[in-house]
């Protein structure tokens, strides 16, 4: 469908050489509508199915026939839906920025080891304070500890990003970056296994559950912490929109057009660190969303302009994560799947699709 559209614009003689972004605006509105639909579905569906009318009544603050429904929705499902949206948006936007900054189509928070770095930060804090990391223990943490975890995760993420920047400026090779990402992941695993060696079985199980990723571990209080972190990251990203466009042409051109390379890098890295680190602190390392969604939004909007790609990626990321969460709940059953398994099942085909189109990718990035 996208191809057809492109052909039409290519063959039609254009009156003016200016562009118009009208189709982008229309698509954006469509995505917002879709987002609300998925949000409603995510709140409705689960082990207990709540009718849509009741959901709207509860959200509107009206009385409901069933007090249990009220509790399920306000205490569990609404925080979970918002967490899903925040996580999907944050990881996707982080992935978009990394793909642009490194000019690498396979970059993403999980691939380059950013989430591993964030996990490592969390793990080190947990290890030194003797806490175990699981969604159950996170639930029992207070707000200060919540901020501490975010701080540790963001610091871990930014450390890995700096390491990757250092390597990326010396060795201009996409594969090297990916290998570094894998190695950082290995170091995390090694430290975690040392931790496990000295831990009791209960803690090990807790950590394993955490690595599966979870959207349900965020309470309303922690949701505020997460939202503030993600929002800060998004604001930084929006300020970088113009710079990100310049980065598309590579460092040499970006510099020649008057971009302050160092300042811009610091901005982008901080934004990515806040987005990926914040989400990882509360939800665990969630894979594939960060790498897959930017490609989907580029394909859907047919643009390379970050002023469109940033909101598009955020919206698509949120919708996709809500969809993953709905799938993970296995509607109609009282079982559920770990979110990481679902994102991998949905995200991997996208990554494979990206690699299969490598021919075009070589031309488009490196």
């Amino acid at each position, binding site marked *: 469908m996208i191809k057809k559209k*492109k052909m039409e*614009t*290519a063959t039609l003689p*254009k009156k003016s*050489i*200016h*562009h118009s972004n009208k189709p982008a605006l229309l698509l954006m509105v469509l995505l917002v509508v879709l987002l609300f639909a998925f949000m409603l579905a995510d709140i409705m569906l689960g082990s207990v199915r709540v009718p849509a009318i009741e959901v709207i009544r509860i959200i509107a603050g009206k009385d409901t026939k069933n007090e249990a429904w009220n509790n399920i929705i306000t205490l569990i499902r609404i925080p979970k839906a918002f967490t899903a949206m925040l996580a999907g948006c944050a990881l996707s936007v982080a992935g978009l920025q990394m793909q642009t900054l490194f000019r690498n189509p396979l970059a993403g928070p999980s691939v380059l080891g950013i989430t591993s770095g964030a996990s490592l930060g969390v793990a080190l804090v947990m290890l030194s304070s003797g806490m175990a990391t699981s969604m159950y223990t996170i639930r029992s943490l207070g707000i200060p500890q919540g901020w501490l975890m975010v701080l540790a995760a963001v610091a871990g993420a930014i450390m890995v990003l700096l390491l990757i920047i250092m390597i990326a400026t010396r060795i201009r090779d996409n594969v090297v970056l990916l290998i570094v990402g894998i190695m950082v992941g290995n170091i995390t695993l090694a430290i975690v296994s040392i931790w496990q060696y000295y831990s009791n079985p209960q803690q090990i199980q807790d950590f394993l559950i955490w690595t599966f990723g979870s959207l349900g571990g965020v309470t309303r209080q922690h949701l505020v912490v997460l939202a503030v972190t993600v929002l800060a990251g998004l604001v930084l990203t929006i*300020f970088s*929109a*113009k710079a990100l*466009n*310049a980065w*598309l*042409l*590579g460092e*040499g*051109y970006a*510099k*020649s*057009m*008057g*971009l*302050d390379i160092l300042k811009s890098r610091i901005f982008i890295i901080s934004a990515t660190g806040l987005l990926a680190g914040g989400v990882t602190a509360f939800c665990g390392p969630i894979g594939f969303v960060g790498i897959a969604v930017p490609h989907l939004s*580029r394909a859907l*909007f*047919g*643009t*390379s*302009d970050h*002023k469109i790609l940033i909101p598009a990626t955020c919206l698509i990321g949120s919708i996709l994560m809500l969809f993953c969460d709905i799938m993970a709940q296995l509607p109609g059953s009282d079982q559920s799947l770990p979110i990481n398994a679902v994102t991998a099942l949905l995200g991997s085909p996208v990554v494979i699709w990206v690699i299969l189109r490598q021919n*075009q*990718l070589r*031309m*488009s*990035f*490196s």
Partner: protein
Amino acid sequence: MNKPGTILSTENLTTGFYKKNRFRKVSVSLTVAANIQLQKGQLTCVLGVNGSGKSTLIRTLTGIQKPLEGEVNLSDKRIKDYASRKLAKKLSVVLTDPVVVKNMQVYDLVAMGRFPYTNGWGHLTKADKSKIDWAITTAEVTTLTNQPLYELSDGELQKALIARALAQDTPLMILDEPTSHLDIPNRIMIMRLLRKLARDNGKTILLSTHELDLALQMADQLWLMLGKKIITGVPEDLVLSKAFEQTFRKEGETFNRQTGSFQVHTPWRKSIRVQGDPTGVFWTKRALEREGFIVIDEGVASVSIEVKGVEAYEWVIQGKGKKMTCHTVECMIAYLNDKENLRQGTASFENNKTEK
């Protein structure tokens, strides 16, 4: 800081790079203590053999790379003292870095040139848009405006990159090897475009290239990378002063100062005199030189060829008491190469004879 009429100059500029030894950093200089000027409104070509430091010089002059020693002055200031945005309004570049970005169209690429002028959000004002349109028209990419970059040919992409640099609206444009990877018609097209920009739009253009022929024809000034020095001058002066020859001298190649081109073939055979119709003589000479004969216009030679004809050419070969008329160059060469014919008395023939 610069003399009037000069837009860019260097003071004892030493360019090069640092190589990391196991123990310390060692500097490797490519150009030493160069004092050169770039004249306003002129097209200047940097020429030099591979590895002579053309790219390093270009990168140093654009401020992308730091000089080992010395200074680069742009307009009234040292280039290192410019704020990045101010510099971007003075100097635009076309690099050899790959730029093909997914989904990016020619218009988007050219619009990037407005980067130093737009606000923090990158909003294009009416003035920006008219500058973009002007750049697109001037660089002759109007028909490509809505084409994605990956669909462009190398020549078209180069033109689009020049359009981007034009949209940046700078008095000085520096291009690193804009004609490499292009076929001959595209090379000529790019050079003509740059020539036009210098002459009609008053742009100062500096480019590095391997195209000796084109540079000799199109450039107002040449910078020759000779050893670690840079020799500057008008192309014709550099040819006559033998600087050109020295720069490109290599085994097996001779520079013909009469034609201003390099001969790949070294003469090793007897001399032949060629006379007649000028066009016919020109191509006959080329064929004979390729075959290794020394071609002379006047004087005594054991063999002479007369080229006759206006529409259909004829070659009358005389020598050693024999006469032969050919109707194609191929026939002429075959005749000359046949040992039993005119090659009697030539050195190579005698060698063959003694072998027998």
